[in-house]
Protein backbone atom coordinates (compact mmCIF):
# COMPACT_ATOMS: atom_id res chain seq x y z
CA UNK A 1 0.00 0.00 0.00
CA UNK A 2 1.20 3.49 -0.80
CA UNK A 3 1.47 6.01 2.02
CA UNK A 4 -1.58 7.92 3.26
CA UNK A 5 -4.87 6.74 1.78
CA UNK A 6 -8.04 8.79 2.07
CA UNK A 7 -11.20 6.92 1.14
CA UNK A 8 -14.53 8.63 0.64
CA UNK A 9 -17.67 6.47 0.52
CA UNK A 10 -20.66 8.41 -0.80
CA UNK A 11 -24.24 7.66 -1.74
CA UNK A 12 -27.71 7.81 -0.26
CA UNK A 13 -28.67 7.30 3.36
CA UNK A 14 -29.73 3.67 3.78
CA UNK A 15 -27.20 2.16 1.38
CA UNK A 16 -25.06 1.06 4.29
CA UNK A 17 -22.09 3.25 3.53
CA UNK A 18 -21.40 4.34 7.09
CA UNK A 19 -21.35 0.69 8.15
CA UNK A 20 -19.08 -0.05 5.18
CA UNK A 21 -16.67 2.65 6.35
CA UNK A 22 -16.61 1.18 9.87
CA UNK A 23 -15.93 -2.31 8.49
CA UNK A 24 -13.15 -0.93 6.29
CA UNK A 25 -11.65 0.94 9.25
CA UNK A 26 -11.84 -2.13 11.52
CA UNK A 27 -10.21 -4.27 8.83
CA UNK A 28 -7.38 -1.75 8.54
CA UNK A 29 -6.91 -1.83 12.34
CA UNK A 30 -6.74 -5.62 12.19
CA UNK A 31 -4.14 -5.22 9.45
CA UNK A 32 -2.06 -3.13 11.90
CA UNK A 33 -2.52 0.22 10.25
CA UNK A 34 -3.45 3.57 11.72
CA UNK A 35 -7.01 4.50 10.97
CA UNK A 36 -9.47 7.32 11.51
CA UNK A 37 -13.11 7.05 10.42
CA UNK A 38 -15.56 9.94 10.26
CA UNK A 39 -19.03 10.35 8.80
CA UNK A 40 -21.49 13.01 7.85
CA UNK A 41 -24.16 13.31 10.46
CA UNK A 42 -27.41 15.13 10.12
CA UNK A 43 -30.60 15.05 8.14
CA UNK A 44 -28.67 13.91 5.10
CA UNK A 45 -27.77 10.65 6.87
CA UNK A 46 -31.46 9.77 6.92
CA UNK A 47 -32.46 9.52 3.29
CA UNK A 48 -30.49 12.27 1.60
CA UNK A 49 -26.79 12.28 0.91
CA UNK A 50 -24.55 10.07 3.01
CA UNK A 51 -20.81 10.47 3.24
CA UNK A 52 -18.19 8.77 5.31
CA UNK A 53 -14.46 8.99 5.21
CA UNK A 54 -11.66 6.64 6.21
CA UNK A 55 -8.01 7.62 6.46
CA UNK A 56 -5.45 4.81 6.53
CA UNK A 57 -1.80 5.57 7.16
CA UNK A 58 1.36 4.04 8.57
CA UNK A 59 2.06 7.35 10.34
CA UNK A 60 -0.15 8.82 13.06
CA UNK A 61 -3.18 10.56 11.65
CA UNK A 62 -3.74 14.06 12.97
CA UNK A 63 -6.39 15.93 10.97
CA UNK A 64 -9.25 13.40 10.86
CA UNK A 65 -11.26 14.62 7.87
CA UNK A 66 -10.71 13.53 4.27
CA UNK A 67 -9.31 16.43 2.24
CA UNK A 68 -7.67 14.82 -0.79
CA UNK A 69 -9.42 11.52 -1.56
CA UNK A 70 -7.28 8.78 -3.08
CA UNK A 71 -10.32 6.50 -3.41
CA UNK A 72 -13.87 7.68 -4.12
CA UNK A 73 -16.94 5.44 -4.18
CA UNK A 74 -20.17 6.91 -5.54
CA UNK A 75 -23.30 4.86 -5.03
CA UNK A 76 -25.77 7.36 -6.50
CA UNK A 77 -25.92 10.11 -9.09
CA UNK A 78 -26.22 12.97 -6.61
CA UNK A 79 -23.04 12.01 -4.77
CA UNK A 80 -21.22 11.51 -8.08
CA UNK A 81 -22.17 15.00 -9.17
CA UNK A 82 -21.17 16.44 -5.81
CA UNK A 83 -17.84 14.73 -5.14
CA UNK A 84 -16.36 14.18 -8.61
CA UNK A 85 -15.30 17.84 -8.99
CA UNK A 86 -13.42 17.54 -5.68
CA UNK A 87 -11.00 14.81 -6.69
CA UNK A 88 -7.61 15.18 -8.27
CA UNK A 89 -6.26 13.05 -11.12
CA UNK A 90 -4.87 9.77 -9.81
CA UNK A 91 -7.78 9.15 -7.46
CA UNK A 92 -9.38 5.73 -7.92
CA UNK A 93 -13.06 6.36 -8.62
CA UNK A 94 -15.61 3.57 -8.44
CA UNK A 95 -19.22 4.19 -9.35
CA UNK A 96 -22.27 1.97 -9.08
CA UNK A 97 -23.69 1.88 -12.63
CA UNK A 98 -27.04 0.77 -11.19
CA UNK A 99 -27.55 4.39 -10.14
CA UNK A 100 -24.77 6.47 -11.74
CA UNK A 101 -24.99 7.16 -15.47
CA UNK A 102 -22.05 9.51 -15.90
CA UNK A 103 -20.79 11.62 -17.54
CA UNK A 104 -17.46 9.81 -17.20
CA UNK A 105 -14.42 11.97 -17.86
CA UNK A 106 -11.72 10.17 -19.83
CA UNK A 107 -8.81 11.77 -17.99
CA UNK A 108 -9.99 10.38 -14.66
CA UNK A 109 -9.57 6.81 -13.51
CA UNK A 110 -13.24 5.84 -13.28
CA UNK A 111 -14.48 2.27 -12.97
CA UNK A 112 -18.23 1.92 -13.44
CA UNK A 113 -19.65 -1.42 -12.23
CA UNK A 114 -23.22 -2.63 -11.51
CA UNK A 115 -22.63 -3.10 -7.78
CA UNK A 116 -26.21 -3.04 -6.49
CA UNK A 117 -27.58 -4.94 -9.53
CA UNK A 118 -25.11 -7.78 -8.94
CA UNK A 119 -26.05 -7.96 -5.26
CA UNK A 120 -29.71 -8.16 -6.23
CA UNK A 121 -29.38 -10.57 -9.16
CA UNK A 122 -26.71 -12.94 -7.96
CA UNK A 123 -27.03 -12.88 -4.17
CA UNK A 124 -30.74 -11.95 -4.21
CA UNK A 125 -30.01 -9.44 -1.47
CA UNK A 126 -29.65 -5.78 -2.38
CA UNK A 127 -28.74 -5.04 1.22
CA UNK A 128 -25.21 -6.48 0.86
CA UNK A 129 -24.29 -4.08 -1.95
CA UNK A 130 -22.15 -2.19 0.58
CA UNK A 131 -19.93 -5.20 1.29
CA UNK A 132 -19.80 -5.97 -2.41
CA UNK A 133 -18.56 -2.41 -2.94
CA UNK A 134 -15.84 -2.98 -0.34
CA UNK A 135 -14.73 -6.05 -2.30
CA UNK A 136 -14.49 -3.97 -5.45
CA UNK A 137 -12.55 -1.22 -3.69
CA UNK A 138 -10.06 -3.59 -2.13
CA UNK A 139 -9.61 -5.48 -5.41
CA UNK A 140 -8.83 -2.17 -7.09
CA UNK A 141 -6.53 -0.76 -4.43
CA UNK A 142 -5.27 -3.48 -2.07
CA UNK A 143 -5.83 -1.20 0.92
CA UNK A 144 -6.04 -4.06 3.40
CA UNK A 145 -4.84 -7.68 3.32
CA UNK A 146 -7.64 -9.61 1.61
CA UNK A 147 -7.95 -12.39 4.17
CA UNK A 148 -7.93 -10.00 7.12
CA UNK A 149 -10.58 -7.93 5.37
CA UNK A 150 -12.75 -11.03 4.73
CA UNK A 151 -12.49 -11.99 8.38
CA UNK A 152 -13.45 -8.49 9.50
CA UNK A 153 -16.48 -8.50 7.18
CA UNK A 154 -17.58 -11.76 8.78
CA UNK A 155 -17.01 -10.57 12.35
CA UNK A 156 -18.77 -7.27 11.94
CA UNK A 157 -21.84 -8.57 10.13
CA UNK A 158 -25.08 -8.92 12.08
CA UNK A 159 -25.43 -12.35 13.68
CA UNK A 160 -26.18 -15.06 11.15
CA UNK A 161 -25.30 -13.00 8.10
CA UNK A 162 -21.51 -13.34 8.21
CA UNK A 163 -21.31 -15.78 5.33
CA UNK A 164 -23.67 -13.82 3.11
CA UNK A 165 -21.63 -10.67 3.67
CA UNK A 166 -18.39 -12.51 2.96
CA UNK A 167 -19.90 -13.87 -0.23
CA UNK A 168 -20.77 -10.32 -1.24
CA UNK A 169 -17.21 -9.19 -0.49
CA UNK A 170 -15.79 -12.00 -2.64
CA UNK A 171 -18.26 -11.24 -5.40
CA UNK A 172 -16.94 -7.66 -5.36
CA UNK A 173 -13.45 -8.99 -6.12
CA UNK A 174 -14.80 -11.09 -8.98
CA UNK A 175 -16.87 -8.21 -10.31
CA UNK A 176 -13.74 -6.08 -10.49
CA UNK A 177 -11.50 -8.79 -11.90
CA UNK A 178 -13.84 -10.67 -14.26
CA UNK A 179 -16.55 -8.13 -15.08
CA UNK A 180 -20.33 -8.34 -14.78
CA UNK A 181 -20.95 -10.40 -17.95
CA UNK A 182 -18.81 -13.28 -16.70
CA UNK A 183 -20.55 -13.22 -13.32
CA UNK A 184 -23.97 -13.39 -14.97
CA UNK A 185 -22.89 -16.27 -17.23
CA UNK A 186 -21.57 -18.21 -14.21
CA UNK A 187 -24.72 -17.53 -12.24
CA UNK A 188 -26.91 -18.71 -15.14
CA UNK A 189 -24.86 -21.91 -15.40
CA UNK A 190 -25.14 -22.79 -11.70
CA UNK A 191 -28.87 -22.21 -11.65
CA UNK A 192 -29.39 -24.47 -14.65
Amino acid at each position, binding site marked *: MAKRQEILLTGAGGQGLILASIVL*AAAAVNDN*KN*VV*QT*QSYGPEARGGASMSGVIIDVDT*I*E*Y*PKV*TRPTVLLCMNQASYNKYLPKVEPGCVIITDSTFVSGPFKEELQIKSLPITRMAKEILKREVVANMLALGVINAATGLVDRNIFRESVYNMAPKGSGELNQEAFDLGYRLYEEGPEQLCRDAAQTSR
Partner: protein
Amino acid sequence: MAETKPVLMQGNEACAMGAISAGVRFYAGYPITPSTEVAEIMAAKLPEIGGVFIQMEDEIASMAAVIGASIGGMRTLTATSGPGFSLKQENLGYAIMAEIPCVVVNVQRMGPSTGVPTAPAQGDVMQARWGTHGDHPIIVFSPSSVYETYYLTIAAVNLSQKLRQPVIMLLDEVIGHMREKVFIPEAGKLLVEKSSDQIPSDWKPYDEKGLTPLVPFGFGHYYHVTGLFHDQYGFPTGDPPHVERALDRLHAKLEKYRDEIVLTNYIGHKEPRVAIVAYGCTVRSARSVVKKAYWQDRLPVGLLSLQTIWPFPAREIEALAKQADVIIVPEMNMGQLVGEVERYVCGQAKVVPLNRYDGEMITPDQISELIGRWLS
Protein backbone atom coordinates in the same frame (compact mmCIF):
# COMPACT_ATOMS: atom_id res chain seq x y z
CA MET B 1 0.29 -0.57 32.10
CA ALA B 2 -0.24 -3.65 30.00
CA GLU B 3 -1.81 -2.75 26.70
CA THR B 4 -3.61 -5.24 24.58
CA LYS B 5 -4.47 -5.58 20.93
CA PRO B 6 -5.63 -2.51 19.06
CA VAL B 7 -9.31 -1.88 18.51
CA LEU B 8 -11.36 0.56 16.48
CA MET B 9 -13.26 2.73 18.90
CA GLN B 10 -15.48 5.80 18.78
CA GLY B 11 -14.88 8.79 21.07
CA ASN B 12 -18.24 8.48 22.80
CA GLU B 13 -17.64 4.76 23.22
CA ALA B 14 -14.24 5.45 24.77
CA CYS B 15 -15.91 7.80 27.22
CA ALA B 16 -18.44 5.15 28.26
CA MET B 17 -15.83 2.40 28.44
CA GLY B 18 -13.42 4.61 30.38
CA ALA B 19 -16.14 5.39 32.89
CA ILE B 20 -16.91 1.70 33.33
CA SER B 21 -13.20 0.93 33.76
CA ALA B 22 -13.05 3.61 36.46
CA GLY B 23 -15.84 1.91 38.37
CA VAL B 24 -18.87 3.93 37.23
CA ARG B 25 -21.93 1.78 37.82
CA PHE B 26 -24.70 4.36 37.65
CA TYR B 27 -25.84 6.36 34.64
CA ALA B 28 -28.85 8.64 34.45
CA GLY B 29 -29.43 10.76 31.39
CA TYR B 30 -31.60 12.03 28.63
CA PRO B 31 -30.17 11.20 25.20
CA ILE B 32 -29.16 14.04 22.89
CA THR B 33 -27.08 14.22 19.71
CA PRO B 34 -24.09 14.12 19.53
CA SER B 35 -23.71 12.38 22.92
CA THR B 36 -26.32 9.63 22.46
CA GLU B 37 -23.82 6.79 21.99
CA VAL B 38 -22.61 7.25 25.57
CA ALA B 39 -26.13 6.52 26.83
CA GLU B 40 -26.58 3.66 24.34
CA ILE B 41 -23.42 1.93 25.50
CA MET B 42 -24.15 2.48 29.19
CA ALA B 43 -27.67 1.09 28.68
CA ALA B 44 -26.22 -2.03 27.08
CA LYS B 45 -23.28 -2.57 29.43
CA LEU B 46 -24.30 -1.46 32.91
CA PRO B 47 -27.06 -4.03 33.55
CA GLU B 48 -24.63 -6.81 32.58
CA ILE B 49 -22.17 -5.82 35.31
CA GLY B 50 -24.57 -5.09 38.11
CA GLY B 51 -24.90 -1.40 37.36
CA VAL B 52 -27.93 0.82 36.89
CA PHE B 53 -29.01 2.74 33.80
CA ILE B 54 -31.95 5.11 34.01
CA GLN B 55 -33.33 7.23 31.23
CA MET B 56 -34.83 10.16 33.12
CA GLU B 57 -37.59 12.52 32.00
CA ASP B 58 -35.11 15.34 31.34
CA GLU B 59 -31.61 16.60 32.02
CA ILE B 60 -32.52 18.30 35.30
CA ALA B 61 -33.78 15.04 36.73
CA SER B 62 -30.78 13.16 35.28
CA MET B 63 -28.40 15.39 37.18
CA ALA B 64 -30.44 14.99 40.35
CA ALA B 65 -30.44 11.21 40.00
CA VAL B 66 -26.68 11.17 39.54
CA ILE B 67 -26.19 13.26 42.68
CA GLY B 68 -28.47 10.97 44.66
CA ALA B 69 -26.69 7.84 43.51
CA SER B 70 -23.35 9.41 44.39
CA ILE B 71 -24.43 10.13 47.97
CA GLY B 72 -25.54 6.51 48.02
CA GLY B 73 -21.95 5.49 47.29
CA MET B 74 -21.95 4.81 43.56
CA ARG B 75 -19.59 6.20 40.95
CA THR B 76 -21.77 8.10 38.50
CA LEU B 77 -21.84 9.59 35.03
CA THR B 78 -24.27 11.54 32.87
CA ALA B 79 -23.82 12.70 29.28
CA THR B 80 -25.46 15.44 27.28
CA SER B 81 -24.87 18.22 24.77
CA GLY B 82 -25.17 22.01 25.04
CA PRO B 83 -28.96 22.34 25.44
CA GLY B 84 -29.01 19.64 28.11
CA PHE B 85 -25.89 21.00 29.76
CA SER B 86 -27.76 24.28 30.27
CA LEU B 87 -30.45 22.40 32.18
CA LYS B 88 -27.96 20.59 34.37
CA GLN B 89 -26.33 23.77 35.66
CA GLU B 90 -28.46 24.31 38.75
CA ASN B 91 -27.91 20.82 40.12
CA LEU B 92 -24.28 20.93 39.06
CA GLY B 93 -23.81 23.89 41.38
CA TYR B 94 -25.52 21.96 44.14
CA ALA B 95 -23.08 19.06 43.68
CA ILE B 96 -20.11 21.45 43.84
CA MET B 97 -21.43 23.09 47.00
CA ALA B 98 -22.39 19.86 48.72
CA GLU B 99 -19.12 18.25 47.51
CA ILE B 100 -20.73 15.30 45.80
CA PRO B 101 -18.57 13.59 43.17
CA CYS B 102 -19.93 13.05 39.65
CA VAL B 103 -18.78 13.28 36.04
CA VAL B 104 -20.80 15.25 33.50
CA VAL B 105 -20.03 14.72 29.82
CA ASN B 106 -20.88 17.50 27.39
CA VAL B 107 -20.32 16.59 23.74
CA GLN B 108 -20.47 20.10 22.30
CA ARG B 109 -22.52 20.93 19.25
CA MET B 110 -23.15 24.18 17.42
CA GLY B 111 -25.15 26.63 19.54
CA PRO B 112 -26.74 28.80 20.87
CA SER B 113 -29.93 26.97 21.80
CA THR B 114 -30.65 23.83 19.77
CA GLY B 115 -28.29 25.25 17.11
CA VAL B 116 -27.05 22.66 14.62
CA PRO B 117 -27.37 19.31 16.42
CA THR B 118 -24.82 17.48 14.30
CA ALA B 119 -22.23 20.18 13.69
CA PRO B 120 -19.10 20.43 15.83
CA ALA B 121 -18.30 23.53 17.88
CA GLN B 122 -16.36 24.57 20.96
CA GLY B 123 -18.87 27.10 22.17
CA ASP B 124 -19.40 25.78 25.70
CA VAL B 125 -15.95 26.60 27.08
CA MET B 126 -17.19 29.47 29.22
CA GLN B 127 -20.45 27.69 30.05
CA ALA B 128 -18.42 24.79 31.43
CA ARG B 129 -16.55 27.29 33.61
CA TRP B 130 -19.32 29.66 34.65
CA GLY B 131 -22.57 27.95 33.68
CA THR B 132 -23.69 27.55 37.26
CA HIS B 133 -23.80 30.62 39.44
CA GLY B 134 -21.48 31.72 42.21
CA ASP B 135 -17.70 31.58 42.63
CA HIS B 136 -17.38 27.85 42.24
CA PRO B 137 -14.38 25.69 41.42
CA ILE B 138 -14.65 23.34 38.44
CA ILE B 139 -12.48 20.83 36.60
CA VAL B 140 -12.93 20.55 32.84
CA PHE B 141 -11.07 18.14 30.55
CA SER B 142 -11.01 18.57 26.79
CA PRO B 143 -9.64 15.47 24.98
CA SER B 144 -8.29 15.58 21.44
CA SER B 145 -8.39 11.88 20.57
CA VAL B 146 -10.30 8.70 21.29
CA TYR B 147 -7.37 7.49 23.39
CA GLU B 148 -7.31 10.69 25.45
CA THR B 149 -11.06 10.47 25.92
CA TYR B 150 -10.68 7.03 27.47
CA TYR B 151 -7.91 8.00 29.90
CA LEU B 152 -9.23 11.44 30.79
CA THR B 153 -12.62 9.93 31.62
CA ILE B 154 -10.86 7.58 34.02
CA ALA B 155 -8.94 10.51 35.50
CA ALA B 156 -12.20 12.47 35.75
CA VAL B 157 -13.95 9.75 37.73
CA ASN B 158 -10.99 9.22 40.06
CA LEU B 159 -10.32 12.91 40.68
CA SER B 160 -14.00 13.52 41.23
CA GLN B 161 -14.04 10.88 43.94
CA LYS B 162 -10.80 11.96 45.53
CA LEU B 163 -11.68 15.66 45.67
CA ARG B 164 -15.45 15.27 46.08
CA GLN B 165 -15.76 17.59 43.15
CA PRO B 166 -17.83 17.39 39.94
CA VAL B 167 -15.68 17.04 36.81
CA ILE B 168 -16.76 17.91 33.28
CA MET B 169 -15.65 16.04 30.19
CA LEU B 170 -15.96 18.64 27.46
CA LEU B 171 -15.86 16.74 24.19
CA ASP B 172 -16.77 18.08 20.77
CA GLU B 173 -18.74 16.39 18.01
CA VAL B 174 -15.59 15.52 16.05
CA ILE B 175 -13.94 13.65 18.93
CA GLY B 176 -17.24 12.15 20.13
CA HIS B 177 -18.17 10.68 16.76
CA MET B 178 -14.89 9.77 15.13
CA ARG B 179 -13.50 6.29 15.31
CA GLU B 180 -9.80 5.54 15.49
CA LYS B 181 -7.33 2.87 16.43
CA VAL B 182 -6.64 2.72 20.15
CA PHE B 183 -4.82 0.49 22.58
CA ILE B 184 -6.77 0.04 25.78
CA PRO B 185 -6.54 -2.48 28.60
CA GLU B 186 -8.63 -5.62 28.46
CA ALA B 187 -12.31 -5.19 29.09
CA GLY B 188 -13.32 -5.55 32.69
CA LYS B 189 -10.00 -4.36 34.08
CA LEU B 190 -10.62 -1.71 36.69
CA LEU B 191 -8.54 1.42 36.92
CA VAL B 192 -10.02 2.67 40.13
CA GLU B 193 -8.14 4.96 42.43
CA LYS B 194 -9.72 4.75 45.85
CA SER B 195 -10.17 8.10 47.56
CA SER B 196 -9.51 6.60 50.98
CA ASP B 197 -10.50 3.54 52.91
CA GLN B 198 -9.64 5.21 56.17
CA ILE B 199 -12.55 6.92 57.82
CA PRO B 200 -11.21 8.78 60.88
CA SER B 201 -13.14 8.22 64.10
CA ASP B 202 -13.89 11.93 64.36
CA TRP B 203 -15.08 12.06 60.72
CA LYS B 204 -17.00 15.16 59.72
CA PRO B 205 -18.64 15.46 56.30
CA TYR B 206 -17.15 18.92 55.66
CA ASP B 207 -14.11 19.00 57.91
CA GLU B 208 -12.54 22.44 58.16
CA LYS B 209 -9.09 20.85 58.47
CA GLY B 210 -9.29 19.54 54.92
CA LEU B 211 -10.56 16.92 52.57
CA THR B 212 -12.41 13.98 54.06
CA PRO B 213 -13.72 11.01 52.09
CA LEU B 214 -17.43 10.85 51.34
CA VAL B 215 -19.13 8.33 53.59
CA PRO B 216 -22.22 7.18 51.71
CA PHE B 217 -25.60 7.40 53.36
CA GLY B 218 -26.39 4.26 55.28
CA PHE B 219 -22.80 3.61 56.35
CA GLY B 220 -22.97 4.71 59.96
CA HIS B 221 -22.69 8.49 59.76
CA TYR B 222 -25.52 10.97 59.88
CA TYR B 223 -25.06 14.28 58.16
CA HIS B 224 -26.95 17.03 56.44
CA VAL B 225 -26.59 17.79 52.72
CA THR B 226 -27.50 21.25 51.44
CA GLY B 227 -26.75 23.83 48.79
CA LEU B 228 -26.65 26.49 51.49
CA PHE B 229 -23.35 27.43 53.04
CA HIS B 230 -22.89 24.94 55.83
CA ASP B 231 -20.77 24.09 58.83
CA GLN B 232 -18.57 21.03 59.28
CA TYR B 233 -21.61 18.85 59.81
CA GLY B 234 -23.52 20.14 56.83
CA PHE B 235 -25.96 22.40 58.66
CA PRO B 236 -26.73 25.82 57.18
CA THR B 237 -24.82 28.88 58.28
CA GLY B 238 -24.69 32.50 57.15
CA ASP B 239 -21.94 33.61 59.48
CA PRO B 240 -19.61 35.83 57.32
CA PRO B 241 -16.19 34.50 58.41
CA HIS B 242 -17.53 30.99 58.14
CA VAL B 243 -18.93 31.57 54.67
CA GLU B 244 -15.63 32.94 53.47
CA ARG B 245 -13.69 30.04 54.96
CA ALA B 246 -16.01 27.51 53.39
CA LEU B 247 -15.62 29.01 49.92
CA ASP B 248 -11.84 29.21 50.30
CA ARG B 249 -11.87 25.58 51.32
CA LEU B 250 -13.72 24.55 48.14
CA HIS B 251 -11.08 26.26 46.01
CA ALA B 252 -8.13 25.10 48.10
CA LYS B 253 -8.93 21.47 47.23
CA LEU B 254 -8.17 22.11 43.57
CA GLU B 255 -5.10 24.23 44.27
CA LYS B 256 -3.59 21.51 46.43
CA TYR B 257 -3.97 18.88 43.71
CA ARG B 258 -3.22 21.30 40.86
CA ASP B 259 -0.43 19.17 39.35
CA GLU B 260 -2.71 16.15 39.11
CA ILE B 261 -5.52 18.19 37.61
CA VAL B 262 -3.85 20.51 35.10
CA LEU B 263 -2.61 18.44 32.16
CA THR B 264 -0.92 19.97 29.13
CA ASN B 265 1.51 18.86 26.47
CA TYR B 266 4.06 20.81 24.44
CA ILE B 267 5.69 19.86 21.16
CA GLY B 268 7.98 21.89 18.96
CA HIS B 269 10.73 24.48 19.22
CA LYS B 270 12.00 25.45 22.69
CA GLU B 271 11.93 29.14 21.85
CA PRO B 272 9.18 29.36 19.26
CA ARG B 273 8.54 32.54 17.35
CA VAL B 274 4.99 31.40 16.75
CA ALA B 275 3.23 29.08 19.19
CA ILE B 276 -0.28 27.64 19.08
CA VAL B 277 -2.47 27.03 22.12
CA ALA B 278 -5.26 24.54 21.33
CA TYR B 279 -7.66 22.10 22.93
CA GLY B 280 -10.16 19.45 21.78
CA CYS B 281 -10.38 18.53 18.10
CA THR B 282 -8.55 21.71 17.08
CA VAL B 283 -5.37 20.15 18.51
CA ARG B 284 -5.50 17.67 15.62
CA SER B 285 -5.32 20.37 12.96
CA ALA B 286 -2.67 22.29 14.89
CA ARG B 287 -0.50 19.22 15.50
CA SER B 288 -0.47 18.21 11.83
CA VAL B 289 0.80 21.71 11.01
CA VAL B 290 3.39 21.89 13.79
CA LYS B 291 4.76 18.41 13.14
CA LYS B 292 5.42 19.30 9.55
CA ALA B 293 6.63 22.85 10.20
CA TYR B 294 8.94 21.90 13.08
CA TRP B 295 10.12 18.37 12.35
CA GLN B 296 10.36 18.65 8.57
CA ASP B 297 10.87 22.32 7.82
CA ARG B 298 12.68 23.18 11.10
CA LEU B 299 10.66 26.33 11.63
CA PRO B 300 10.57 27.97 15.08
CA VAL B 301 7.02 26.91 15.94
CA GLY B 302 5.39 25.00 18.81
CA LEU B 303 2.08 23.70 20.09
CA LEU B 304 0.81 23.74 23.64
CA SER B 305 -2.21 21.43 23.78
CA LEU B 306 -4.46 21.69 26.79
CA GLN B 307 -6.09 18.51 28.07
CA THR B 308 -7.32 20.51 31.05
CA ILE B 309 -8.92 23.86 30.26
CA TRP B 310 -10.32 24.60 33.76
CA PRO B 311 -8.66 25.31 36.15
CA PHE B 312 -6.91 27.34 33.47
CA PRO B 313 -3.25 26.31 32.87
CA ALA B 314 -2.02 29.78 33.83
CA ARG B 315 1.56 28.77 34.69
CA GLU B 316 2.04 26.98 31.39
CA ILE B 317 0.73 29.98 29.45
CA GLU B 318 2.96 32.37 31.43
CA ALA B 319 5.98 30.19 30.67
CA LEU B 320 5.08 30.02 26.98
CA ALA B 321 4.61 33.79 26.81
CA LYS B 322 8.22 34.24 27.96
CA GLN B 323 9.48 32.20 24.99
CA ALA B 324 7.07 32.91 22.14
CA ASP B 325 6.66 36.13 20.17
CA VAL B 326 3.23 35.25 18.82
CA ILE B 327 0.60 32.93 20.30
CA ILE B 328 -2.19 31.75 18.01
CA VAL B 329 -5.37 30.46 19.68
CA PRO B 330 -7.57 28.51 17.25
CA GLU B 331 -11.08 27.86 18.56
CA MET B 332 -14.34 26.73 17.02
CA ASN B 333 -16.20 29.61 18.60
CA MET B 334 -16.12 33.41 18.44
CA GLY B 335 -13.20 33.56 20.90
CA GLN B 336 -13.61 32.18 24.42
CA LEU B 337 -10.42 30.70 25.89
CA VAL B 338 -8.35 33.31 24.02
CA GLY B 339 -9.42 35.91 26.58
CA GLU B 340 -7.96 33.79 29.35
CA VAL B 341 -4.75 33.27 27.34
CA GLU B 342 -4.43 37.05 26.90
CA ARG B 343 -4.91 37.53 30.62
CA TYR B 344 -1.88 35.41 31.49
CA VAL B 345 0.27 36.36 28.51
CA CYS B 346 -0.12 39.86 29.88
CA GLY B 347 1.31 41.66 26.89
CA GLN B 348 4.51 39.57 26.77
CA ALA B 349 3.57 38.12 23.40
CA LYS B 350 1.12 38.98 20.66
CA VAL B 351 -2.04 36.88 21.02
CA VAL B 352 -3.84 36.13 17.76
CA PRO B 353 -7.26 34.45 17.77
CA LEU B 354 -8.31 32.15 14.93
CA ASN B 355 -12.04 31.56 15.05
CA ARG B 356 -14.39 29.46 13.02
CA TYR B 357 -18.08 29.08 13.77
CA ASP B 358 -19.74 27.70 10.65
CA GLY B 359 -20.01 24.14 11.99
CA GLU B 360 -16.81 22.91 10.32
CA MET B 361 -13.41 22.06 11.80
CA ILE B 362 -10.54 24.51 11.60
CA THR B 363 -8.33 23.06 8.88
CA PRO B 364 -4.54 22.65 8.96
CA ASP B 365 -4.38 24.98 5.94
CA GLN B 366 -6.05 27.78 7.91
CA ILE B 367 -3.52 27.42 10.71
CA SER B 368 -0.44 27.10 8.53
CA GLU B 369 -1.47 30.12 6.51
CA LEU B 370 -1.70 32.18 9.69
CA ILE B 371 1.62 30.85 11.00
CA GLY B 372 3.24 31.72 7.69
CA ARG B 373 1.93 35.25 7.90
CA TRP B 374 3.42 35.77 11.38
CA LEU B 375 6.74 34.07 10.60
CA SER B 376 7.43 36.31 7.61
